[in-house]
């Protein structure tokens, strides 16, 4: 109980700090600490899958993304609008207060035993031959959601690439990075091989325990971004066929296997019985690589 109160206090203090921070860099540093505490809080609630995702995204990719945005903002400061008047401020404050109270009331009014399908998932768990109920839901019981989410990532990459200027849009994504020397160059050579092993481990345990493809993909993406940021491994041009195939292969394979299920068992995305686990693993490997490539391309941004 004291542990929880201390954690909640820390989270609230950091959230407040993010809001009142005057400099963008300070706000990002606070937000990274906030993500760390949030991961611990999810772990405290026993939701290790969520905690792992928060750690992988919050500690790795979102920090890089936000710092790049803060840097771009400080290089070209946005034009300050005239500060809102007193009435506007009061109205904004009242609106936020009402929203906060409504959310708080909604949480407090939740029934003690929230409705859910956890019992049904547990009852049908053996059908997928996977040990982790979250993996079963993601790949089998609600496979369509996972398919659509991975397809959304491909669309997001396409939209980001479309933001590049017409001249040479098919070139390497993002701005070319200056080559680093010293400790950063060393770390950018040493860490990726170790990180790839960790990603494979997190992917593999996801079959039976918290972990899995999305967390592994976030780590893989970070391991690609590290040598890119250090300037020792320039990104391949967007026009490269291998890169495009990598981004699209996961969702495409998922759809193909789904159609196979439709032919063999009569339902789209149904796994042919007896082959559930190997097929799920093959699709997950392809999805992991696609998601990793998509996340890295999104962080690099469009060609400038």
């Amino acid at each position, binding site marked *: 109980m*004291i*542990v929880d109160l*201390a*954690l909640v*206090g*820390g989270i609230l*203090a*950091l959230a407040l*700090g993010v809001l009142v921070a005057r*400099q963008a*860099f*300070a706000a*990002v*540093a*606070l937000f*990274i*600490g906030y993500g*760390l505490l949030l*991961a*611990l809080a999810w*772990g405290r609630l026993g939701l*290790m899958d969520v*905690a*792992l995702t928060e*750690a*992988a995204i919050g*500690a*790795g*990719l979102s*920090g*890089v993304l936000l*710092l*790049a945005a803060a*840097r771009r903002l400080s*290089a070209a400061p946005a034009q300050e609008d005239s500060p809102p008047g007193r009435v506007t401020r009061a109205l904004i404050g009242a609106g936020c207060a009402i929203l906060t109270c409504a959310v708080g009331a909604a949480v407090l009014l939740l029934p003690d035993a929230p409705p859910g399908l956890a019992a049904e998932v547990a009852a049908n768990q053996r059908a997928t031959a996977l040990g982790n109920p979250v993996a079963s839901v993601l790949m089998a019981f609600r496979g369509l959601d996972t398919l659509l989410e991975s397809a959304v990532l491909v669309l997001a990459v396409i939209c980001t690439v479309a933001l590049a200027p017409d001249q040479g849009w098919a070139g390497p994504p993002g*701005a*070319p*990075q*200056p080559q*680093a020397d010293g400790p*950063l160059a060393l*770390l950018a050579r040493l*860490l990726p091989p*170790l*990180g790839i092993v*960790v990603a494979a*481990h*997190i992917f593999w*345990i996801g079959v039976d*325990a*918290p*972990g899995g493809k999305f*967390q592994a993909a976030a*780590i893989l993406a*970070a391991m690609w*971004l*590290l040598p890119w*940021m*250090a*300037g020792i491994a320039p990104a391949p041009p967007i026009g490269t066929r291998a890169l495009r195939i990598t981004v699209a292969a996961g969702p495409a394979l998922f759809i193909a296997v789904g159609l196979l299920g439709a032919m063999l068992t009569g339902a789209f995305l149904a796994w042919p019985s007896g082959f559930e686990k190997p097929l799920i693993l093959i699709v997950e490997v392809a999805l992991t690589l696609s998601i990793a490539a998509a996340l890295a391309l999104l962080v690099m941004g469009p060609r400038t």
Partner: protein
Amino acid sequence: MSSLLGVAAFAVLLTLLLGLVRVLRGPQAADRIAAAQLLGTTGIAALLLWGAAVGSATHTDLALTLAVLAPFATIAMVRKEPGE
């Protein structure tokens, strides 16, 4: 023994929360980002102790993920800017 380890995890968590004051106060961006990264180390220690207390390997995996991604935000901040 496991309750002792739980208490130890809480003690480490307390040093983490106290260290947050430096993230909040700065004054330099380098102070904040260094404190945020190094508090990650403290978080890892708390997770390892906590995992040992409840006998769960998943906590160790969470600590492993944090460890492998620990330097990222710092590198994103200290790397040379394009064109610098």
